[in-house]
């Protein structure tokens, strides 16, 4: 990503910029909601707190990003309208984020893959030509580093743990790996954003993510699964069967009592 000026960012069509912001925001929001489902159910109180705290950080990041997207869009939608009143097909999160919690290992693998992605992303967004996005990224990058330390630590413990934990977490990794392809499949939005210096080049992001992930997998004695032709397009609004149920939970109150506040 070249250090271009805010003027270059301003030349990109607002709907492209809004779409780019919503992809990042929705991934954080959906993942926050999933992690919130663990509250009171994690294997130990420390993990309960860890998952809940990570969820809160992600929710906070999503709120900042959604507010920014709403302002750029200029149609009067605030963070609440964007979170609670958009339908499934208007959500553009990575499909990986909406996958079910499964067992603790499934959650850790999903978290690790996305933490590593978000860290590489935010580390590059701190120099975004979109100044507000750069500020949000500078805040988020510190939090994300902490998240990755937690999920990497658990991945190593489970992978390099007992025969049972190793086999199960390897199976989680094999099952979730195909969803990572979508993160690095650049489309016209990604290309336009990168050209304007608002976001990183997706190819560069993919390489950096790959190196980081390989390092931890090696430490965890886990095998990197082969890439497959399997493909999802959550970032274009085509989701797995799980997102609708998650949104039903997330949006219930605003749908049942429009405009409710407390």
């Amino acid at each position, binding site marked *: 990503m070249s250090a271009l000026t805010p003027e270059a960012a301003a030349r990109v069509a607002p709907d492209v910029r809004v779409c780019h912001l919503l992809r990042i925001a929705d991934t954080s929001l959906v993942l926050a909601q999933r992690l919130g489902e663990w509250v009171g159910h994690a294997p130990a109180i*420390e993990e309960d*707190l860890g998952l809940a705290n990570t969820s809160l950080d992600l929710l906070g990041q999503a709120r*900042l990003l959604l507010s920014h997207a709403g302002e750029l869009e200029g149609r009067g939608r605030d963070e609440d309208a964007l979170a609670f009143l958009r339908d499934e097909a208007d959500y553009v999160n990575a499909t990986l984020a909406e996958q079910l919690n499964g067992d603790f290992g499934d959650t850790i693998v999903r978290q690790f893959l996305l933490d590593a992605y978000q860290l590489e992303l935010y580390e590059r967004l701190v120099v975004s030509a979109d100044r507000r996005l750069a500020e949000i990224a500078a*805040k988020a990058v510190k939090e994300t580093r902490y998240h990755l330390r937690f999920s990497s630590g658990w991945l190593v413990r489970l992978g390099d743990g007992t025969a049972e934990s190793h086999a199960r977490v390897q199976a989680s990794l094999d099952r979730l790996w195909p969803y990572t392809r979508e993160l690095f499949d650049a489309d016209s939005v990604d290309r336009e954003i990168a050209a304007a210096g608002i976001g990183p080049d997706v190819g560069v992001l993919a390489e950096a993510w790959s190196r980081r992930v390989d390092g931890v997998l090696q430490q965890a004695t886990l095998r990197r699964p082969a890439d497959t032709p399997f493909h999802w397009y959550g970032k274009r609004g085509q989701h797995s069967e799980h997102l609708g149920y998650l949104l039903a939970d997330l949006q219930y109150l605003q749908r049942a009592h429009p405009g409710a506040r407390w």
Partner: protein
Amino acid sequence: MSVTAPHDAVADAAGPLARAHAVLATLPDPEIPVLSLVDLGIVRSVEMDADGTLCVGLSPTYSGCPATTMIRADTAAALAAAGFSRVRIVDVLSPPWSSDWISADGRRKLEAYGIAPPPAPVASVRAVVAPEAPVACPRCRSTDTELLSEFGSTPCKALHRCRACLEPFDRFKCI
């Protein structure tokens, strides 16, 4: 009972900015009430607009800290009670808050309260690359302590345990 006229903040002899600052310096953080907002280092600016509106810049500690909303509400209420009729609270994200911004006073108060404070900020590059100093137990001062959980009872704390006195304790996370 005497009736006092509403306090005119702008005309205050002590200076409205100093007075506003004094209010914030005694306003407790809702989660760690031993710290004031100033101790915590989240008050970024206190300024008076041309039209007499008091502008307070506040930084969130963590993006998702649930206390953020409460802190804004408390700030507005405390300043209104101190006679500031027009107050605007601005979110300041950049540069992001870090635990280095907790004041020396704040670090002492944390320790007295039973929360291990983050170490004092250092300017040396060597200090950044050197291994982190052991965390001292805020109760018995032993440095024979261990990390129980990276995450604690609030977003800004981690959970440790002292091997000497066997008590668990919170530590303010360093970010």
